[in-house]
C-alpha cells in the first residue's frame, strides 16, 4: 500500500466498475480462482438496475430459479460472493483510468479513492445512475448554488426559502428532514398522489395541515433569477395557470438516469455506446481491461443477466493470467475440489 496525497492507495487483483448482478457474480468467479476484488458503484447501494429500477419486480429467466425479485437476486448474489470478502466503494464514480509503467492500471474515483490493479473489469450495465436534471433553459447557471439534485450537506438549506420537487421517497424524506432548517419549505408535485412510503406521506400531510409546510400541485415550467441565485420558480398548476413561487433554493427529484459517464473517454473501442469485446475472454481493445454484461456488444449478444454470468466466468480465466503470469491455472469444479471448498469456507 502507498499513498497519493492523503488517500490510501488500494492494491488489489481486480477492480470491478459496477456492483450490479454481473459485477457481484464476478466476485464469485474471481474468488474461486483466488483473485481479490474491489467494486466501485455510483449508487449508494449494491445491485445496479435490479436494486434501483425493479427491486420488487419478478425475474423469471435466471437458470434454476423459476422466479425471484430483483432484490432477492441481489441478496443471493451477495451471499454467494461473501466468502470472498468483496470490498465495496459506493456513491462514487470511476473517473480516471491510466496505465502505470509496471503494466498495471490506476483507477481514481470521483471521491478520490485510488486503486492499482493488473485487471479492470467494466460491468457498468447501461452506465452510472445519475440524477435527472431539469431540462429548462438556463438551469445550469443555478446548479450547485440554488438548484440541487441531491443533498450533500443539510446546512446548505438553512434559512432558505426552499422548494422540493417530486413525489417519491427522496423528495418526501428530504422535505421532512429539511423543513426544520429551511425558512420555508414548499413541496411541488404533479399530482396529489405520492409514490413515497405511506408513513412519510402522512407526516407530510400533517405538516401541511399545520401550516409548517406548503404543498403545491403542479409542474415546474421555468426558473427566475439572476444566475446563480434563484428568486422564484414558475409552476403550472393543475388548472393550467402559471404561478410564480418565490424561492432561493430548489431541490429537484426527477429520478435517476443512466449515462456512460467518464468511461466513455477511456479510449476503449465503442460501438453505439457499447464496449466492443472479443468473445473468448471478453477483453476490450485494451489488454487487461475486460468488459461484461449489458455494457458490451459482440455478434449475437443478448442483454440478459445470464449472459453476463457466463461472460464473467470466461473473463476470469484470462484475468488470472494477468494477476499470476507464472502460475498455471487448473480447472476445477465446486462439487469436488477441496481447494475450492476451502475458498468457499465449506471445507
Amino acid at each position, binding site marked *: 500500500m502507498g499513498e497519493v496525497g492523503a488517500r490510501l492507495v488500494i492494491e488489489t487483483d481486480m477492480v470491478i466498475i459496477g456492483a450490479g448482478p454481473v459485477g457481484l457474480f464476478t466476485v464469485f468467479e474471481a474468488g474461486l480462482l483466488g483473485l481479490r476484488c474491489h467494486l466501485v458503484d455510483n449508487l449508494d447501494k449494491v445491485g445496479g438496475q435490479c436494486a434501483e429500477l425493479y427491486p420488487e419486480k419478478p425475474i423469471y429467466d435466471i437458470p434454476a430459479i423459476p422466479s425471484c425479485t430483483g432484490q432477492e437476486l441481489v441478496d443471493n448474489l451477495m451471499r454467494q460472493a461473501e466468502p470472498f470478502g468483496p470490498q465495496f466503494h459506493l456513491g462514487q464514480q470511476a473517473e480516471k483510468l491510466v496505465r502505470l509503467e509496471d503494466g498495471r492500471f490506476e483507477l481514481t474515483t470521483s471521491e478520490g479513492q485510488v486503486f492499482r490493479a493488473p485487471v479492470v473489469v467494466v460491468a457498468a450495465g447501461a452506465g452510472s445512475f445519475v440524477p435527472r436534471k431539469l431540462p429548462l433553459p438556463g438551469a445550469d447557471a443555478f446548479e450547485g448554488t440554488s438548484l440541487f439534485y441531491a443533498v450533500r450537506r443539510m446546512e446548505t438549506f438553512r434559512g432558505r426559502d426552499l422548494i422540493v420537487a*417530486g413525489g417519491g421517497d427522496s423528495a418526501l424524506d428530504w422535505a421532512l428532514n429539511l423543513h426544520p432548517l429551511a425558512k420555508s419549505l414548499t413541496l411541488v408535485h404533479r399530482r396529489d398522489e405520492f409514490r413515497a412510503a405511506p408513513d412519510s406521506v402522512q407526516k407530510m400531510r400533517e405538516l401541511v395541515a399545520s401550516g409548517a409546510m406548503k404543498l403545491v400541485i403542479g409542474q415546474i415550467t421555468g426558473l427566475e433569477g439572476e444566475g446563480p441565485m434563484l428568486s422564484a420558480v414558475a409552476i403550472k398548476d393543475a388548472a393550467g395557470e402559471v404561478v410564480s413561487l418565490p424561492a432561493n433554493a430548489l431541490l429537484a427529484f426527477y429520478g435517476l438516469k443512466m449515462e456512460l459517464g467518464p468511461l466513455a473517454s477511456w479510449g476503449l473501442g465503442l460501438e453505439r455506446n457499447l464496449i466492443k469485446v472479443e468473445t473468448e475472454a471478453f477483453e476490450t481493445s485494451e489488454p487487461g481491461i475486460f468488459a461484461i454484461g449489458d455494457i458490451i456488444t459482440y455478434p449475437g449478444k443478448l442483454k440478459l443477466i445470464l449472459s453476463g454470468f457466463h461472460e464473467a466466468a470466461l473473463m476470469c480465466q484470462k484475468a488470472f493470467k494477468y494477476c499470476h503470469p507464472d502460475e498455471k491455472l487448473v480447472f476445477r469444479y465446486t462439487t469436488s475440489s477441496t481447494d475450492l471448498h476451502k475458498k468457499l469456507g465449506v471445507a
Partner: protein
Amino acid sequence: MAKVIVTDREGADHELNGQSGWSLMEIIREANLPIEAACGGCCACATCHVYVDAAWVDKLAAPESDESMMLDEAFQVQDNSRLSCQVKFTDALDGLKVTLAPEF
C-alpha cells in the same frame, strides 16, 4: 399492416408498421427512433414518454396506477402523456398518432 404515425423531436413524421401484440415502445424502438426505454419496458423508468394525439387519447386503455406513478418522474407531463411501454398495440389502433416527449 396497421400503422402508427410517430412525430420525432424535430417534428418529422414517421409511419411505422404496428405489430399487433407489441407495445408501442417496442414498435418505436424497433424502427430505431430515439426512444431510451432504459428499463426495457417494465414500467420502472419514464424514458419512453410520448404524447398521444388528442383524437386517440380515449381510444387507449386508461393508464394503470404504476404508469401514473412513473410519469411523476417525467418532465413536461400533459393530460395526453403516456409511457409507451404500457400501451399495447392492436390492429384496432391503426393510424394511432403519437409524439416523442422531450428527452432529459
